[in-house]
């Protein structure tokens, strides 16, 4: 989808976990830095469905489910969490297993409409790693997507 935007974000974060600090532990931040969670598009309009491609560059499996992820907006020099959309669907409580070196693309849901233009990113709701004894260690909202732009549709946009 081609969109015309009349504005340009001065600083669009493009690297995973590089846009602001995380409230999670340093260890999990380091893990998250080895992953890539990139929106398929760099520009969206309110109401669009955002799909995120996960690239597992680790040596172990990862588990993700982007559905219901928390949307954050860059404002006043920092990232601000937006309240969850009450109209969002329930999320099936599954996850997707991504083997080392593989990629997978899943939907984080539809953006609210209206939504202020700006730079946004997602904190992924479900992110987990293999744990001890074959278990699974879950790190909710620890993995952060690369940033993307949300802007109004220009007249005549597709």
């Amino acid at each position, binding site marked *: 989808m081609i969109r015309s935007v009349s504005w340009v974000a001065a600083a669009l974060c493009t690297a995973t976990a590089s846009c602001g600090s995380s409230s999670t532990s340093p260890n999990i931040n380091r893990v998250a830095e080895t992953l890539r969670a990139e929106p398929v598009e760099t520009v969206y309009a309110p109401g669009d469905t955002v799909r995120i491609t996960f690239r597992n560059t680790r040596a172990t499996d990862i588990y993700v489910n982007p559905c219901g992820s928390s949307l954050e907006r860059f404002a006043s020099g920092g990232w601000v969490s937006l309240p969850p959309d009450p109209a969002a669907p329930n999320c099936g409580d599954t996850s997707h*297993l991504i083997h080392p070196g593989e990629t997978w693309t899943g939907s984080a849901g539809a953006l609210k409409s209206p939504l202020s233009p700006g730079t946004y990113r997602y904190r992924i709701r479900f992110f987990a790693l293999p744990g001890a004894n074959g278990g699974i260690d879950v790190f909710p909202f620890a993995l952060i997507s690369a940033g993307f732009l949300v802007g109004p549709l220009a007249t005549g946009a597709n």
Partner: protein
Amino acid sequence: MKHNQTILAAGLLPGTSDPLAARRACPARLLGILMAVFATACSPGDQPVAPPSSTPVRSAVSGATLTAVAHRNFREQLAALDSAAPGFAGVFFDDAGQLTVAVATDGFDAASVARVMEWVHEYSGPTRVVTRPNLRRVAHRYVELYGAYQSIRDHLWSGDNVVALGIEETSNKVVVGVRTATARASIAAKLPDWGVSADMVRFEQRDAALGETTLNQTFRPARGGLMINNQDNNPCTLGFNVYNWNTGIGGSSPLYFFTAGHCSGTWGQPPAQTIYYQPGNSPTGSRVGVEYATVPVHSGGYCPSGHSPCMDADVLVVQYDDTVSVHYGAVANVDASKNITGYFNVQGTTTGAFVGQVVTMVGQVSGKSTATVRQTCMDQLVSGPAGAYWILCQDSADYSSTGGDSGSPVFIPYTPGNPYTPAIVGIHSSVSTSTGHKWYTPISQIDFVFGGAYYYW
């Protein structure tokens, strides 16, 4: 030590490769006093599976000192009965709770029955007075089974991966619990050399000892709560093991399990040849079955106005491969670390739950948790990896769950004194990210959508 052997044999019962063995075993397990000993192991609730301690059987129950039977364990006493009652093959309570004497001859006369009953009364005490037991014709005399048991016992070796050995009266076989398929094959190949007929032996494969295995590891016999995955790499949780009326109940009939519909990479489509593994895809797990039945998608007026497509349930059915050992009627019980410590018997006569009732959920990621049913039969939109559908009539209870718990069994465990337990309640489906509430498909919807085709009690 001989008493220990008796207990060990009984310890085989909860974990079995025979889907109906648990059903048979608990009502049929031994006699009066022994029933008390194993009440914990076979009661429908939280059931530790590890053998009890080495406490002698009778004194463990009554606190009484051992009497004349002390010089022989249960197995030895049954074997000795053959001399007084030729053809005797075992004694147990059947599924209907009827005392049953197994016989391996057509000429088992009334005098023999009387002698067996005399022993029963002596063994189990004066309170258990049954004069007319049922007779069941079987293939092997108990003394023959005992000979086979002794031969196997005498030939075992360190490192053979045998974890249990005993005689099972209900199946009229010697049961050999093995840790691996390789061990099973190895021992099976040696049986002729040991003078043991293969038809006298039933193997029971355990891939790991209980208490050492979590929900995220390989575990057999398969039961609810275990981690599963499919070829689409959507890890979920094994729900309930069930039969299908159309393909038969019990015996060697095919077995199936429920999980969440959205676990399938082809959610909303007719059953694909999606393969399921436990716990994960190769090499970490092994295949357990293939997708068998899915829920049809509706549109238009069937759905809430303006909200289609929709479905009546978020569930799918996987048919087990014949080679997979399955524990029918069981959901894994776990500790806080998700170590499997036993199982919940969920074979109840009641189903479903009302608002205010407390339900339990066992999920492969979150483990075991309980919550109160807070809402019933709500229609709502559920998003899965392969699309989003309105799911009609879901119930809510805020147990702990997260990604990978979809498909988890939701149930009410057995509660002493409550005749409405245990009860199968539903299959975990989804979470509302705005409210945090958890939702499951109630069993009534599953029955409705499949026309009551599945049998689970």
